[in-house]
């Protein structure tokens, strides 16, 4: 067993740095929110140019977003270093990754608003921007609380990573299924763009899973050298794969039959993505159920 006494000092120093960094990041996000509120009122089609004060204030926004982004990276690195394998911790890792991706979306939204406000209604873009900003604030504040409470050492790191991967796979599967149905419902975008939107949502749902899989492989490659799963984990994985395959076969047969009869009223990509994400849910659920 490692000596905790030697390891505690660095962990305590990292905890004390997290709080001011988190406060600064939260303040930056609140600042951005305040600027957006004022900007939305000022950016009307007839506007010639921004008032000098507001223009100067808006120049700070990219740096504020950068500070928030750096805190996300810091937070994610710490969470990955101290994996616990608990569901809520895995969910929070996914939320941090999602919030980081949405930070990039903020930049895109601001750019779109800047280009389109004179000619088009940008209310939806503002709504998305506010939603993402509040989400960033929630993640940062929760992150500060989590960092303050976390233990100095995590035991059973490979086991924790194994469960984290499957928790995130389960959530990614659920998000993927929701995304597929959202895209095809026509509620978010017109149906002619549904396929592209659905693929985009599917990729977004998979990014956290790919990230954690790559991290797991790289992180423990050195330690385990040849294997990243013990015999029971490998056995559970094989069993879950069998269950996922058997549950998918009847659905494949139905899809192929409907396609041959020209009875599919939705594109095949919809069914393929839906099947993929449902199999992901089945696969990870079986593994988690076998390890209750």
């Amino acid at each position, binding site marked *: 067993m490692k000596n905790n006494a030697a390891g505690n000092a660095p962990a305590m120093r990292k905890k004390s740095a997290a709080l001011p960094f988190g406060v600064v990041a939260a303040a930056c996000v609140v600042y951005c929110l305040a600027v957006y509120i004022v900007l939305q009122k000022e950016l009307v089609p007839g506007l010639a140019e921004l008032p000098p004060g507001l223009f100067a204030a808006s120049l700070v926004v990219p740096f504020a977003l950068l500070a928030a982004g750096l805190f996300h990276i810091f937070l994610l690195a710490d969470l990955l270093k101290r994996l616990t394998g608990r569901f809520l911790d895995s969910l929070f890792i996914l939320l941090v990754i999602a919030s980081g991706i949405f930070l990039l979306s903020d930049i895109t939204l601001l750019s779109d608003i800047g280009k389109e406000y004179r000619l088009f209604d940008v209310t939806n873009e503002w709504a998305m921007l506010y939603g993402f900003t509040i989400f960033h604030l929630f993640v940062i504040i929760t992150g500060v609380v989590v960092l303050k409470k976390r233990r100095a050492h995590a035991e059973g790191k490979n086991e924790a990573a194994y469960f984290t991967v499957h928790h995130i796979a389960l959530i990614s599967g659920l998000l993927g299924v929701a995304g597929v149905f959202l895209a095809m419902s026509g509620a978010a975008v017109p149906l002619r763009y549904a396929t592209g939107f659905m693929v985009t949502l599917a990729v977004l749902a998979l990014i956290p899973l790919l990230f954690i899989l790559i991290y797991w492989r790289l992180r423990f490659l050195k330690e385990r050298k040849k294997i990243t799963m013990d*015999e029971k984990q490998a056995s559970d994985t094989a069993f879950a794969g069998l269950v996922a395959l058997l549950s998918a076969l009847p659905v494949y047969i139905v899809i192929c039959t409907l396609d041959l009869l020209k009875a599919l009223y939705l594109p095949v990509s919809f069914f393929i993505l839906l099947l993929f994400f449902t199999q992901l849910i089945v696969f990870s659920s079986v593994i988690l159920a076998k390890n209750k």
Partner: protein
Amino acid sequence: MKLQNNIRKLRFEHGEMSQQQLADLIGVSRMTIYSIEKGNYVPSTVLALRISQVFKKPVEEIFTLSPEKEDQKNEE
């Protein structure tokens, strides 16, 4: 026939060893040790031999097959 074991008892006899400590010694996860103790997972020969090396006891003293009559009584 079901595989039974007395790993939990042996752990406590060996300085109140935790499941995690035993898992680290033989190179598996804590959940694997938990599942073996509960009888939900049958370890491989290699794993059983590693466990016997830790406790310095023959495999037959750690793992036993419960007779059929006991299985039926337990199921009733």
